[in-house]
């Protein structure tokens, strides 16, 4: 029943609360967008996990190539000045 041409893979993103971001929670098989949305609701929101769902066809996602990991990610390792931790934040600003 999971013939990938009839039932392609979809990735599911759930937003737990208003104001938060959608987070990837898992995947499922479904024939089309409507059915994917229903299945996502049934599979991933049974325990009040969220109030908004995105489904995306897995084949539409462009992923970085693990072979390029070194050149993609290593150069950031020694650039601590990119973290906004060298500023004094006035108390009035509160929590950031």
């Amino acid at each position, binding site marked *: *029943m*999971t013939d990938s041409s009839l*039932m392609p893979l979809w990735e599911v993103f759930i937003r737990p609360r208003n104001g938060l971001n959608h987070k990837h929670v898992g995947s*499922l*098989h*479904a*024939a089309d967008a*409507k*059915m994917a949305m*229903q*299945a996502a*609701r*049934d*599979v991933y929101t*049974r325990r009040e996990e969220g109030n908004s769902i995105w489904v995306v066809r897995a084949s539409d996602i462009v992923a970085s190539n693990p072979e390029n990991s070194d050149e993609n990610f290593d150069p950031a390792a020694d650039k601590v000045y990119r973290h906004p931790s060298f500023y004094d934040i006035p108390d009035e600003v509160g929590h950031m």
Partner: protein
Amino acid sequence: MPANTEQLIEVVVQIADDHLILGHRLSEWCGHAPMLEEDLSMPNMALDLVGQSRALYSYAAQLESKGHSEDDFAYLRKDREYTNCLLVERPNTDFAHTMLKQFYFAAFMHPFWQGVKNGTDNTLSGIAGKAEKEIGYHIRHAGEWIVRLGDGTDESAERMNDAIEALHPYTGELLEVDEARQSCIVSGAIPEIAPIQTQWNATINNVFTQAKLTVPEIDYPQQGGRAGNHTEDFGFLLTELQYMQRTYPGAQW
């Protein structure tokens, strides 16, 4: 005019039985669904239905005030004492039959609950507020499948047509108004049937048109459940449903 309590109990138990038996049938799919996604969806919906039956049985027990609980209604009656319509006890047969059965029932219950929600009985109205949302989703879920199966492959269309032939004759009983229901309509606890029938027809026609299916003419409608006259399959269903309470009376968990 408040409904005669006897008749109100009769109607509440009818609706509760419909939900318990349909929910039990649907739960039979747990672990056997054609795909994992449906293996969660169907028991989800079964739990909605069983949950609604619990609320209704509790209300019936309270109205009756004989010290009975929801369990006495659900597990300790004989087959002839259940007054569910025949549609809900029909065997699952295949996925097409199951989705169609859910769809027929949900298409009736959705406008019914909307009417009850605005009705004169506060307890029923409260139950209806929750049930309306749950059953609204059941229409959508089953409806989308019917469209895809009816307008799918040769085999899926054939299975949908077999399901319609087998189950459509049982749908009339959903819309039947007996003396008890009439009394509850007069009291305003449950809605008039004519507008519900219109909405039921519209829901069925809409989905069947999209699914390239035809609503059949029924010459010999099947009925009898409301009077306790059930089909042969019902005994087997009750055997399984009641097993725990019959074997270990009073068992709790």
